[in-house]
């Protein structure tokens, strides 16, 4: 069964590229262009991974991560952001994100990190 990824991003170009690349890699991809619709999708579906930007309309990335960690703690999160400041990256990891990718990003590297995050999470659960 295909792994399901929720991509939360408001830049249409990045959305399309991520969708294209992840579909090619064999994942099932859902898109949310803001935090609010991401929350709705999270309630309606089960996801194996969340790929999110930090700067989003309506609900910020940090608020969204807090929401996910509280209500769906088992879903791994990868942040994809233009932020390069150490404090922002540290804050994200402190909130419990699994990986942080800065823009500009390499699509191949991103695909590998997605694979690793989903794989490590699966292993973590199979060990338990």
């Amino acid at each position, binding site marked *: 069964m295909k792994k399901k990824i929720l991509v939360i991003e408001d*830049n*249409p170009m990045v959305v399309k590229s991520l969708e294209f690349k992840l579909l090619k890699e064999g994942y099932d991809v859902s898109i949310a262009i803001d935090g609010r619709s991401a929350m709705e999708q999270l309630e309606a579906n089960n996801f194996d991974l969340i790929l999110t930007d930090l700067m989003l309309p309506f609900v910020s990335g940090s608020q969204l991560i807090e929401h996910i960690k509280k209500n769906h703690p088992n879903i791994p999160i990868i942040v994809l952001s233009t932020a390069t400041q150490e404090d922002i990256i540290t804050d994200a990891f402190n909130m419990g994100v699994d990986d942080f990718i800065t823009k*500009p990003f390499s*699509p*191949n590297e991103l695909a590998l990190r997605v694979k690793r995050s989903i794989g490590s999470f699966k292993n973590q659960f199979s060990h338990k």
Partner: protein
Amino acid sequence: MVSPFFLKMNLASDIHELPPILEINLVLTIIFFVFTLLLISLILYLRVHKNIANRRREELDLLLIDFINNYLFNEEFDNSKEIKAFKKKHLKTNFDKRVAVSQILVFAENLKGETSSVIQEVFLGLGLYDFLISDLKKKAWFKKAKALFVFYQLNIKIPMSLVEPAINSNRNELRQQAFLYLLHNSTENPLGFLGKLITPLTLWEQIYIENALKGYPGETPDFSRWIYHEFSSVAIFCMKMMADYNQFEHIPILLKFLNHEKPEIRQQAILSLRQMEISEILQILIENFPKENTLLKQEILKTIGKMGLEKHLQAIAPYINKENGILTVEHQRLARYFNPKTSITENNIFTNNVQRGHS
């Protein structure tokens, strides 16, 4: 039924029969009415034109995103055939080409690694290189600036004969883009353009260059190459960079510049040497203190505060004019900093003692 011609004739003869003041009023009303109609028509035309252009942009953006993603990630996509077809079908006008350039820039800003060279390939394949080169040959400065920006962002080399004239352009925006292009595309001498300047560097240009240097992947340039430049702004920039990049090997030059004829150069020499924490400057600054202007005296006081001792403050005390409020306050502040127990009165006594000692 009355024909419009006769109606017009009647209206014209009626207007002539009116008293002159009413006639003028009526004529002016008609003129303003026509003018208003024309203005509203123009606004409506521009609005409609803009809406059509925006719609076309949105459509083309979607087509380009789809096309470029296929080009980048779809292995079954026949790149060479599809790029020709896309160019022929969708990039017919200059507007279409400008939209394509903007969208390619968005891709370049967000993707890196193996995709960068493919994005360049798409740019060249869509014929946008020639399009922007023709922009560079036009007179409009904003087209040239945009073209240089795109070439710089996509890391595409262009003939130097097209970039060099922009170095000394009257438009700051164009000059800045030329600097960034040259800096980014140079492998050995990123600041070589400084030697070709025939107008001073503005503060904004200095900030742009400084910022671009932070991302320069090559070896940091030796800033002493331009320290004797005819423009103080270039020399000041280089002195600042020497301190920022810790080029301690140039300390002798900076020390020499503490006695430069131009006060702005002396000021930057103090700032750079202070940043580098070179205590040798204290003796020179104390000697120079009496002849410096208030601004430089302030810098000397700050330097003593950062690197000096109470004895250095004592040495310059006799040369602080009591009527100069700024220097007096700064001097008092430093006196307390060195000796927190010093009261304002005591400090005055201490100053007087030093003065007596000197005399």
